[in-house]
């Protein structure tokens, strides 16, 4: 009897111990922290075109390594779609690539944007969508209540405010210099490449050989091509007054059409409309190397006295300039492609570097209004130099004294968003 009681007592103790030992880990697991979904919010993503929603919720003790957040979204039909899954210790408001004036970089707040068209084929701006969050850490899980939001199109990208301020300042300086030019003359430094145009045209006249002018392979919407047509206008006027032969082979038919008008007008202004021929401007090819081969052939056969390569050029720059150099022509070149400039430097007599290409039209026309805009370029360059110097000093100071806010402010002001 005693033995039986003893056995029962042992079994009871064993069961009690085993139940306690089994209960301990379970209660420990249930004690794992869960995220605070009370602050879970969904709202329109700012500064976008109206296709994204911003989800935010407070970070907390539950954001441990190994834990995950799952994001679900539902449209009007109420079908939940898994939009994203990511580690719980990631995606904070502080990680957003937006400037300090447009976004609060809060490291205590989770933030993520959901691009709705990626999940809903029938997405429409202005339609309401539901969102919920699920937290998973091993066997522990929690789910938020559903929140709703509407993605709306925004009217202004506040992140680009720095760019807009710079633009407004540039426009103010632009008009100030234009009005200043009317009152007072401006000193403009000499540009050797442009002063040599007269020499090149004079040489062509003396030798009785043609002048080749290439506007490059850019379209009419490219700024270098527009700058090139301005220079073509001045060259054509001088060519007309000297009664020399001009040939303008084209890569782009639209540029050809515009150039025809420009050259015709230049001949009229030079009082030589009878010397104008419609085949001064002609289309060659819209293929890069076919264009180069054709123009090379013409230069080789006709041995021009001068060649102008001004505009947008790529690999054909050397093909054209080198053939021109072997014929002994005076060559003047200019391009915005800095990778092609070395080829022009070595093959041409004069090269327009950097902003000289854009200044050329104004420099040659000698019109006060156009000349004044060269001053804007100078102010712009002075501003860039000042900004580079000041920005470098501030970053250096911020790094030296470990002032993170200063580094952040300077970094954001000088960044393009």
């Amino acid at each position, binding site marked *: 009897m005693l033995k039986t009681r003893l056995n029962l007592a042992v079994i009871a103790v064993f069961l009690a111990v085993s139940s306690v030992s089994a209960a301990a880990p379970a209660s420990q697991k249930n004690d794992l922290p869960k995220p605070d979904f009370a602050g879970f919010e969904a709202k329109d993503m700012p500064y*976008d*075109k*109206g296709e994204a929603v911003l989800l935010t919720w407070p970070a907390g003790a539950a954001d441990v390594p190994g834990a995950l957040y799952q994001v679900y979204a539902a449209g009007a039909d109420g079908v939940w779609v898994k939009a994203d899954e990511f580690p719980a210790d990631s995606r904070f408001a502080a990680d957003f690539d937006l400037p300090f004036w447009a976004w609060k970089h809060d490291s205590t707040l989770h933030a993520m944007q959901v691009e709705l068209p990626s999940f809903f084929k029938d997405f429409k701006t202005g339609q309401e969508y539901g969102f919920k969050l699920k937290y998973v850490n091993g066997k522990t899980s929690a789910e938020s209540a559903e929140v709703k939001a509407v993605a709306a*199109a*925004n*009217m*202004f*990208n506040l992140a*680009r405010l720095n*760019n807009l301020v710079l*633009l407004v300042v*540039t*426009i103010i300086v*632009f008009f100030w210099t*234009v009005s200043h030019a009317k009152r007072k003359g401006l000193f403009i430094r000499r540009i050797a490449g442009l002063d040599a145009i007269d020499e090149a045209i004079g040489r062509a006249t003396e030798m009785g050989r043609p002048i080749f002018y290439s506007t490059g392979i850019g379209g009419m*919407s490219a*700024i270098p091509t*527009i*700058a090139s*047509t*301005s220079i073509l*206008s001045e060259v054509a006027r001088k060519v007309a007054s000297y009664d020399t032969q001009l040939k303008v082979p084209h890569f782009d*038919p639209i540029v*050809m*059409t*515009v150039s025809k*008008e*420009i050259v*015709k*007008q230049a001949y009229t202004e030079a009082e030589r409309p009878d010397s104008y021929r419609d*085949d001064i*401007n*002609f*289309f060659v090819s*819209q293929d890069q*190397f*076919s264009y180069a*081969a054709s123009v090379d*052939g013409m230069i080789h056969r006709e041995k021009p006295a001068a060649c102008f390569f001004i505009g947008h050029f790529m690999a054909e720059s*050397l*093909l054209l*300039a*080198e053939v021109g*150099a072997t014929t002994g022509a005076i060559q003047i070149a200019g391009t*915005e492609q*800095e990778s092609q400039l070395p*080829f022009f430097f*070595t093959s041409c007599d004069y090269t327009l*570097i*950097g*902003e000289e*290409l*854009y*200044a050329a039209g104004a420099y040659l*026309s000698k019109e006060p*209004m156009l000349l004044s*805009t060269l001053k*804007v*370029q100078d102010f*712009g360059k002075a501003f860039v130099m000042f900004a580079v110097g000041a920005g470098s000093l501030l970053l250096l100071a911020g790094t030296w004294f470990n002032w993170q806010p200063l580094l952040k402010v300077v970094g954001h002001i000088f960044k393009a968003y």
Partner: protein
Amino acid sequence: MTLIKKYIPLAICFLVGLMTLASYYVPNKTSENYLEVMNKWENIVAGFAFLLGLFSLFFSHYNKIRRKVDGWGYSLFVFVGFLVMVVPALMSHGKQMDGTSLTGLGWGYRFMFNALSGTMFSVLAFYIVSTAYRAFRIKSAQAGVLFAAALVLIIGKVPLGQLMWDKLLGWTHLGVTQIVQWLMDVPVVAGRRGIMMGLAVGGIVTALKIIFGIERQYMGKD
């Protein structure tokens, strides 16, 4: 007449310029659609302009053949080349592949056009040599600096040059690859960025000149 030839084009340019500029700051679907429409219009205009280009090409080469100018025989190839590509293109409905086999257009494109383009591109190698020879003629102090930098780069980029450097100047403990890297990372990048900044400023000012109607040479004078 002045209204049609001057004021209306300037007004269109001003409005379109401002709207395109504004679309950079307005992240709205409307501004995105506007840019798409503009691109479509550009393509439509380019399509019509291409016809003009084609007529210009045929006209100028026809005149060369008619007047028997020097090299008029080359002009014949413009018409021959046009027919050789266009006739197969019409026959194959503009397709380069028919299943797994090449159509006449595909064959012409791959075995004629690509081969000729490749040939033109490869000519660059010879031109680079001749232009490098011209650049390396030291006629001034600047040309001397250019030559020295280029020489170091050439030595640093070829294994034989690296071997020579190590044998002759190994005692300096300066690796030629580090010098090359420094040249590429510091003076070259500084120069390029200087040019790029100047170009960017020039580009902005040119764009403003066109938008506000100060630069009008692209549409002829008044």
